[in-house]
């Protein structure tokens, strides 16, 4: 569930953000508490607390005093935007490096991407959005 490259609280914060992005937690919905996360993940409660606080700082979650943590309105688009900005660094940079060491040209990379993109099944979320608009 967690790897050794980064602190666990960062990995946990990312995984909760993933859940918000995929709609596991809707906006204004309550997320698990520090103690629930700690027990479920078998991690130190301080680590779980740090993950939740980081998401509060980033505006993904907000605190309701004495009740718990909730997904902030607009959290999904906020995470989408963060992920788009990180996309090139996380995925394109290593892809280009590997392609270069294999002698693939940018045009060949683009052709491969087009092929794979076309082979993907239609995204149900995307189609439902299009139907709504």
């Amino acid at each position, binding site marked *: 569930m*967690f790897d*050794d490259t*980064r*602190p666990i609280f960062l990995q946990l914060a990312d995984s909760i953000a993933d859940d918000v992005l995929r709609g596991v937690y809707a906006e204004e919905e309550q997320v698990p508490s520090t103690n629930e996360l*700690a*027990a479920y993940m*078998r991690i*130190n409660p301080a*680590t779980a607390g740090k993950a939740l606080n980081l998401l509060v700082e980033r505006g993904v979650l907000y605190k309701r005093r004495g009740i718990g943590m909730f997904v902030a309105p607009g959290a999904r688009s906020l995470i989408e935007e963060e992920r788009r900005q990180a996309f090139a660094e996380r995925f394109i940079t290593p892809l280009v490096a590997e392609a270069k060491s294999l002698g693939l040209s940018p045009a060949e990379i683009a052709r491969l991407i087009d092929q794979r993109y076309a082979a993907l099944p239609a995204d149900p979320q995307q189609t439902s959005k299009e139907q709504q608009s």
Partner: protein
Amino acid sequence: MTPSSAPPAVEARALTRRYRGATALDGVTLTIERDKITGLLGRNGAGKTTLMSLITAQDRPTSGSVHVHGRDPFEQAELIEQMCFLRDNQRYPDDYKLKHAIRAARICYPNWSQETADRLIELFRIPSKPVVKKFSRGQLSALGIVLGLASRSEITFFDEPYLGLDATARHIFYDELLSEFTEHPRTIVLSTHLINEMDRLLERVIILDQGRVVRHADVEELRGDAFQVAGRAAAVEEFARDRRSLAHRTIGGLGTAVIEGSLATDDREAAEAASLEITPVSLQDLVAAYGVGAEAAAD
């Protein structure tokens, strides 16, 4: 902010313990914070058990001092009562059965929770009939865990509490440790070699080697605070030369080195330019590297 008036759980200054010429603990100065789970890591003989014995006043330092909640614990009954130390080779009187051990603990520990003890005895399936002396290694460990958690002591020390426990029993321990800790926050110190399995339970980590503290930090700080490079021996050596290398290994023409510090962009570029492979270092690997490093330096 916690109130600054409350002294830390444990404060050791230049704590040293020698046994007939062998130095078990060598000038250890450290603070163990209240209401946190701290891991005590290091090789066998690094001084972990000696440190716990000195803190709980079961042994006297050769020099230096230790304070518990701001006071010297030696011959302070009411301070010693607040501490619970379960040794990995904890001994019980010959005729003791489970009920005797529980009865004695209920008298010794003022915050004893019989409810926790009953629940854990059932979860671990500790037998009531045989004498404790006949217990298997795993049953002995389970009994130690029951006493440690049910004591609800202000400071609880576990010395390798998992010995002989199967995977299911270890998970019971981790779950019960966390739930006891969240419901009744207190100071817990545990020594372990099962670092890959238990590191996530910890908040603070103390790494001992040859009687000295080599690292003392938040466990999260140490995660990603070292990396390993592997490749041609000459390239590894070149790379390690102007960096802090903790452990260096060469077999034939191949080498690896564990480098302290987080991986910076220029490290990555230098490693790539030298065709070195970079891999993350787990806390277990880091502790092992500290253990190797000191010996290599002594060579």
